[in-house]
Structure formats: C-alpha cells, structure tokens
C-alpha cells in the first residue's frame, strides 16, 4: 500500500491542468451532455456514411430518382421506414438529409461566429469611433427583414454559387449581428482587467492583445453561444426548406422531407413519411442544446458540477 501511494505521488503530473483541461474533465462527468454528444456523433457518422449505407438499405440507391412503382409504401422488410410519395426510401433519405441539415447548420454557425467575433471584438477593444461605426452597421444588419432578404439574396446568388451554399451564405450574412453584440459586451467587460493593460505594456500589438489575451477569456461565452446557434441554424434551414426558400427541392434535407407533410393526406394517413425527420430533428436540436448547457457548466469556473 505504502509503496503504491508513493508511486502515485511520484507520477503526479508536473504541469497543472489548464482551464481548458479542467473544463473537459467537468464536461466528461456530465451524463446528459455526454449522452447527447454520443447521439450527435452517431447521427453525424451515419450522415457521412449515407452513400455507403444506401447500397444496403434500399434496392434503389439513387435517392433523387422518382420511382413510380414503389410510391407510398408503409414500412416493411424491404423499406424499413417505408417510401415517400415519389417512391424513395425514407431511411436512406433521412441519412442523406442529415448531411445537408448538419452541413448547413455547421457552416452557417461557423460563418456567423467568425463574422460576429471579428466585428464584436474589434468594436469592443478599440471603442470610440470604430465601435460606433461597426455597431451601427450591426444594427442595420439586424433590422434586415430575414425572410425577404433570404428570398432576394437567394434569387441573386442562384446560379452563381452552388444551391446549398447560397443558403449558407445568406443565413451567415444575416445572422451575425447578435453574436457581434454579445462578443462586444463581453470584450468591453474583460478589457477593464489590468492584464490587458499589462499586455500592451509588454509590447503586444493590438491584434495580439485581442487574439491572445481577450479572445481566450471570452471564448467560453462564444463556444456556448455557438452550440445554441448551431441548433437554431438547423431549425432555420428546415423552416426555409419547408417553405421552399431553402435548399433546392431535389436535395434531400430534413426540412424538405418535412414539407411533404403539407398534404393533409400525408399528415393524417402516412405518418412514416414525416415522423422520422420530425423525430430526428427534434432529438438533434435537443441534444445540441444539452451539449451547450453542459459546456456552459464546464466552462464556468464557479460551477462545481
């Protein structure tokens, strides 16, 4: 016993845990967040593997092709989740839909976070006229009527950019305002700390002060916000696709799949067509929100969980 304790004492790590390592430890202990993470990872992996899985799941791997011979078949051994009104396998489309929904959600979130962080941190750090100009511009972007701009920009960009990326760029351009405001307010509070003054006095350039000193200290807020935005971006994509302003109709996305529930006949009599995408959409968004909640606890040095 005695020898084993001395051994563990000797093996004690020389380096202390960084704030990030402490956060990771806390996150791994959070059961709900971990279950949600596993779920998201599985959904992501299945979506990535969709073309590969399609060969085994459906006798007709081509998802875009209309198949008149097998329209509206309820779930059976051949089609586990049945087929839709064009005769396409629902399960296969579900996996393909995940590719689109997750890709749009992730890319749009990345764009929103990057734009918002750049604008917000520059405005907050420099203050004065720079702050005024950038924030008034942000206000302007925030007042854009979202739906109208989506339709207009969609039309302008259509044909120039690939259909999917039109949507990502449009959502990205219109949604960074909130993040910019959040980051600015955090930066304003954080820059009052003397270590920012200290960083300037030891010869850091303003750019370096922002990147190395300010952003790491506001990163926790940005990361938590990113997860929430990720969830809402998936909803936005689905909603737009449902309305017909999203990705092109031929592309399978969860939103497009849901839009088939427009028909009362489908909504009432053929639940296998719209239930699976509705369910997976709900679960995905819930999971992402749980992960965000977990990150919030993990990154908050004051929470003991």
């Amino acid at each position, binding site marked *: 016993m005695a020898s084993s304790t001395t051994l563990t004492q000797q093996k004690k790590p020389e380096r*202390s845990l960084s704030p990030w390592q402490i956060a990771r430890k806390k996150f791994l202990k959070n059961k709900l967040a971990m279950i949600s993470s596993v779920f998201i990872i599985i959904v992501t992996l299945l979506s990535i593997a969709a073309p590969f899985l399609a060969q085994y799941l459906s006798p007709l791997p081509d998802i875009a092709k209309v198949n008149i011979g097998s329209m509206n078949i309820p779930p059976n051994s051949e089609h586990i989740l049945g087929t839709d009104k064009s005769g396409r396998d629902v399960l296969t489309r579900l996996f393909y839909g995940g590719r689109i929904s997750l890709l749009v959600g992730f890319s749009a979130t990345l764009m929103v976070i990057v734009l918002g962080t750049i604008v917000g941190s520059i405005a907050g750090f420099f203050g004065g006229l720079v702050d005024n100009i950038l924030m008034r511009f942000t206000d302007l972007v925030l007042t854009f009527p979202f739906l109208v701009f989506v339709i207009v920009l969609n039309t302008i960009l259509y044909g120039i950019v690939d259909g999917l990326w039109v949507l990502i760029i449009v959502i990205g351009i219109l949604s960074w305002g909130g993040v910019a405001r959040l980051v600015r307010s955090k930066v304003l509070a954080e820059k009052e700390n*003397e270590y920012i003054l*200290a960083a300037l*006095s*030891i*010869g850091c350039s303003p750019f370096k002060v922002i990147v190395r000193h300010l952003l790491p*200290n506001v990163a926790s807020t940005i990361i938590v916000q990113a997860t929430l935005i990720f969830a809402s971006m998936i909803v936005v994509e689905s909603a737009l696709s449902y309305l017909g302003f999203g990705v092109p109709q031929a592309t399978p996305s969860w939103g497009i799949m849901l839009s088939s529930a427009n028909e009362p006949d489908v909504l009432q009599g053929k639940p296998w067509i719209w239930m699976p995408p509705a369910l997976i959409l709900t679960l995905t968004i819930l999971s992402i929100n749980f992960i965000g909640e977990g990150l919030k606890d993990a990154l908050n040095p004051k929470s003991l969980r």
Partner: protein
Amino acid sequence: MTTRDFIQDRIDSLENRDVLLEVQNLKTYYPVRGGFFKRTIGHVKAVDDVSFTIRKGETLGLVGESGCGKSTTGRTILRLLKPTEGQILFEGKEITKISGAKLQKARRDFQMVFQDPYASLNPTQMVGDIIAEPILNYEKRNKKELEQEIKSLLSKVGLPEAAYYKYAHEFSGGQRQRIGIARALALNPKLIVADEPVSALDVSVQSQVLNLLKELQIEFDLTYLFIAHDLSVVKHMSDRIGVMYLGNLVEVASNRDLYKEPLHPYTQALISAIPEPNTAIKKERIVLEGDVPSPQNPPTGCPFHTRCPMAMEVCSKEKPPLKEVRPGHHVACVLY
C-alpha cells in the same frame, strides 16, 4: 559605516548620475462626454501640470490620496494613456508623441508592476508563458534556453521553478505579485513604474515584496517610480518623494528632508497623520477640513487653498509654481 552614512553615501552617489526620465508640465485630461451626441462637455483634470526628473538607479516615490492622479501619472509616463500636454523625455528622447510600432519598440525599456495581482495576470496563460511573452515580443528565442532563463528569473523573485507550469489562480496574492514583477523584469528594463504594488496585499506579505523590489533594484540597477498612498511604505522605498494633490505635484524632496521638515501645508498635514507607535510622544495632528474638490472643476489658484489652514487671499488667485526653496527641496506654495 552606520546606516545614516550609508544613506548619505547613496544620496551623494545618486546625485552624480544621469537623468533617466524627465517629465515636463505633463497634463492628462479625461474627456467627460454627455448630452445628445456624446459631445465632450468637460474634462477631468487627472494630471494637471506635473514636472519631475528621475536619475538612473534612483527611486522616486509618489504619494497622495486616492484620485489625486498618481496612477494616471505613472500610466501616462509609460504611454498607456495619451498625455494631453507636456513632454516626457526618456534618456533624453521624446516619447510623448510616438505611437504604433515605434512606441511598441520603445516600451522595452520601461515596464510596469500593477496594483491588483488578481486582475493583472491572464487566467488562461501558464505562468511560464506570461513571463516569456514580453521577451518573445521582441526577440526570437530558442525554447529550451528561454525556459531555463524564465526558471532562473522565477527563483530570483522567490518562486519555485515548478511555478513555470502552473496557472495564476494557483498562487496567493503575494506570489502573484512576484509573477508580475518577474514579467516586468523579463525584458531587463531601465525604468519600472510600480503602481501601488503592495496595496492589495496583506501587511505581512507587503514587506516581503517591498524588500524583493529593493534587492532587485541593486541586482539589476533598476530605476523605480514608486506610486503608493501608504506613507510608511513610500518612506521605506524611496530616495526622493513627490507629494501630489489634485493632479498637481506640491512638494518634491529627499526622503529625509520630507519627513523631517515638510514645507507644504498639505505635506505637513499628511505627515502629522502617520500614527506614532510610541505612546509617550504626543503628536499634534493637523486635521484638514472638507473634501478634495472635484478634478473636473478644480479651484482657481493653488489647488489646495480651499482646505489649507494657512490660506491667504493671493492663494485663490495665482497658482504657485514648483520652485527650489532649499537644495533639492521643491515646493509649490506662496509661503516660501
């Protein structure tokens, strides 16, 4: 050699050394904004006409009440704030107007020790990185060598070498202040502005940090501008002392002269407020009436005339300049 001889010796040797920093008529005003379009509607005159010099190897103490502009003076000298007027000459070179990359380059020679050891260290950085950063801002260095250098610097400020791998939150206030001192020392600067470096610390730890600063001064031939509001701390640290009131320097004298024979009525009141440990000695306290006027709207003439027990009519009209009334003893008062 007695202590008194030692002090006299130090004063004599310092008098012959070159001037490192010269501050002439320095003014730093903060704009006060208000109204509909956030126009500038006034100024807080935090520093209003301050002039002094510091010789190489010397410690100049700056004392005054909170809000009298001593920290602003220190920060303006390091050009962390923009001076409104006046000149700052560092080694004879003008640093008042430089900016951008030039200022960044010049900062190598003057560093700062901050007041709050809890807020002045980045919580996401490892202690080793905190101290290495100033060096890496100016030089490309071999990683291993630099690590060794930082570790020896850590032991010089009285911290274990293992501190290199830790984070600031794992240390006590006194230890954090040592990290801050190590960061300021990393570039081997010529001037260090210590902005109330011990006011946030326990009394028991204060003396350790002060003595460390004194030891380092001799080892690295440092020049200090030592800002504090605690008179006994300033007495312990400084060769010469400047007394500030409402943004103005009212008296500058050597440590001995100032405590033995304060000339300005404000300094006299300050010195009389130092508690006397020996109860047998009866001390007469000069109690000042009223509050410090607002620096946004300072009184005309001598800034102290509203509270001065010896105020005359002329005091409210003319601002007395800082003049040398005895060798090395400068006072801004009409009485002299």
